[in-house]
């Protein structure tokens, strides 16, 4: 009887150690996972605002040149995408201010730095571009036509000139991509 009781000690200790280790490992895993999730949320949010910037850029063109755009995307005709080729952050003539990559990207950028950052500098490395503007026949109305505009934006994790392993696996070094589609109505006048 005595021998049997003492033999229980090792299994009990092992079970206790296993439960404790499992608990600690799960806590560690949850912490690491949440940390990664926060980072991914931030990068996706940065890409989201760049994509919204592309939508703003596209709407600006539609607002000031509705007829030119209308001709280019006449329903039933193949769209003339050249009209929109300037809606790209990287090759845009305003390049110095809304170019979010290359020499403009500054990993140490901060609005709290002792010296005010340059207007051309950017704290995130990314780009946005126009993808398509397609007529939507299902929403055709009496005085206006409906189009689905699609834009995309991508950002990196903020790594400097030497991309991190995750960013370097992507062709342009920007793995966090957000694509936005928005319905736009153009008047037929």
């Amino acid at each position, binding site marked *: 009887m005595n021998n049997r009781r003492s033999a229980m000690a090792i299994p009990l200790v092992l079970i206790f150690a296993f439960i404790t280790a499992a608990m600690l490992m799960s806590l560690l895993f949850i912490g690491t996972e949440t940390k990664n999730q926060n980072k991914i949320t931030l990068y996706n949010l940065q890409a989201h605002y760049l994509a919204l910037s592309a939508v703003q850029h596209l*709407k600006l063109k539609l607002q000031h040149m509705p007829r030119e755009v209308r001709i280019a995307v006449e329903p039933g005709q193949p769209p003339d995408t050249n009209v929109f080729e300037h809606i790209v952050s990287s090759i845009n003539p305003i390049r110095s201010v809304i170019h979010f990559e290359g020499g403009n990207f500054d990993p140490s950028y*901060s609005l*709290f730095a002792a010296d*005010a*950052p340059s207007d051309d500098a950017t*704290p995130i490395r990314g780009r946005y571009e126009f993808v398509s503007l397609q007529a939507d026949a299902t929403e055709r109305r009496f005085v206006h036509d409906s189009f689905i505009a699609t834009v995309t934006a991508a950002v990196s994790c903020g790594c400097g000139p030497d991309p991190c392993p995750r960013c370097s696996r992507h062709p342009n070094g920007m793995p966090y991509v957000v694509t936005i589609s928005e319905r736009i109505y153009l008047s037929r006048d």
Partner: protein
Amino acid sequence: MELLSKRGAPTKNTKTGLGLLEVLVAFLILGFLMLPVFGFLTYTVKDAEKLYTEAFAISHARFVMDTVMFQVPWILLEDGDGRIANIRDPRDGDIFDDPEIGDSVNHLLRAYLNRLFGDQTIDFPFSTDGIVECPMGFRYRVRLKCVTIGEPHLEHLDIFDQDAIPISWLVPAHPTSGEYNVMKKLILEVMWSNIKGEDPPATFQGRSARINSIQLVAVRADLEEYR
């Protein structure tokens, strides 16, 4: 007699039980083993606080950026000193020839901006720099920079085509600056300390383990037609 000796066995029971010394030693060993466990738990709680502050900063940055992108009228956004933007109505009360209405707009803006940049006294023109506090007591410094993409960055509206169209053909000049522009670049930074109740510094003093920051960038176009 034999039965008694078998059944009684008082000496046997004493041998199988645990003595005070054994219990104390067991607790001591257990205590030593639990020390790193409790240390790890403390670290996890602190780490959870850090993750919470990150999540709050991201959430607040999104709130500010959405508001500035889609709620604050275009004409109110001004470049400021190159680091902190200004928000003000350049028309004041002149639109109705009534200075009281101008004051009302300022009161509205003050209430509005306190939600974005913290509950503090901000004077006209309102600067986009302030401190907000989360429910757990951590403090975050929020700052917004605005860069007008117009003169001198862009003399013509060649965002549309290489055959430039002067911006002045399309939009009116800004009432205060007199510049023509149709786009603004917005850069938002939220900086916070991992220590509860500590104000993040107004000026960056080099990288530190307890100071964190996140940034968002967006471009806003002048899509308003009320002017």
